């Protein structure tokens, strides 16, 4: 029983830190609440879709920005807009915030600024991916020892 409580405590602490450090916002908590016995892998599934999306969109942005002359900023912006949307839907706050800045640089047709944002968004995406994978691992460990995943408000 102690193992279960220890793991649950770890989960709560980790989850809280993700919020505190701005990796996730309230929308992520909303999604956690949508998970139940009928849909036990919902959050993992959405997160996977999100990470696939991230990779695809980041590649699109990189390709568009590679052009030395006549970068198609509209195309970059379209990808950033999509990434902003999905990061908002999953509660990936830091990724979303970079996207907001990114869009301003697109609008200003500032290639340097865009490249910096691309770097940032890539960094934030991989940070978040690691963090969430750790969180999901903790969930699996709790379930494996017969515990239930705590609901953190």
């Amino acid at each position, binding site marked *: 029983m102690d193992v279960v409580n220890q793991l649950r405590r770890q989960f709560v602490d980790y989850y809280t830190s993700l919020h505190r450090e701005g990796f996730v916002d309230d929308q992520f908590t909303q999604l956690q609440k949508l998970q139940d016995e009928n849909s036990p892998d919902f959050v993992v599934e959405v997160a996977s879709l999100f990470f696939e999306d991230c990779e695809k969109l980041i590649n699109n942005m990189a390709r568009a920005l590679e052009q030395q002359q006549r970068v198609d900023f509209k195309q970059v912006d379209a990808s950033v807009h999509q990434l902003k*949307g999905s990061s908002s839907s999953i509660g990936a706050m830091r990724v979303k915030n970079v996207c907001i800045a990114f869009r301003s640089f697109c609008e200003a047709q500032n290639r340097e600024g865009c490249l910096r944002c691309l770097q940032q968004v890539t960094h934030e995406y991989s940070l978040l991916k690691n963090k969430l994978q750790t969180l999901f691992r903790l969930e699996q460990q709790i379930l494996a020892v017969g515990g239930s995943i705590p609901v953190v408000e």
Partner: protein
Amino acid sequence: MARNGAVTWWRRTEKIDGFDLSPTDTEAVHVLAVDDSYVDRKVIERLLRISSCKVTAVDSGRRALQFLGLDEEKKSNGFDGLKVDLIITDYCMPGMTGYELLKKIKESSAFREIPVVIMSSENVLARIDRCLEEGAEDFIVKPVKLSDVKRIKECMNREFRVGEGERERERGRGGINKRKLRESCELSSSSSSSPSSQSPSPSPSILSASAPCSPSSLDSPTRRLKMTISE
């Protein structure tokens, strides 16, 4: 049998949930969700299912029209028995926008009665107005939350009770009065005198002033705009 995207989606939905989409099951609300984002589709599907709705999710306005049997090029595959009670669509989509889809639905004699809700990540008053004037039931600012879905569902039930006749008159007078209908719907949801069997919880984010027009309003406290009497 012709196989197109709409069929695939329908089948996937059926397979995943084992839903019996027989037309005789009139209890559950059947929602057609339209969004080009895979992530958003998954989220809206879950929000709707957990709110006891049946969901068909498609990735474009075109697919939505095909599903309804409205697409000129691809005629209905015999889904006429599948009644759609509500359409919820993203605004910004490649090809056909949510606004264009809304127009097509409202232009169709067969489907104009179906309430259409628009979702958008941009809280732009002009956009919201345009959609409402074209006949959208409501406008949700993304990210969509459970409370948004609950609110829409409640309002839908109430509007059906208010009566189709009243809605017909409203339509004749244009968009403005649709707002009044919605406002009174909201008001009755917060008062306890409503005879409705629903137990509505008054939404905490009712806004009576106009929403900011800035597109970067994700930090705005209002996630969705409540309809206001036009200024």
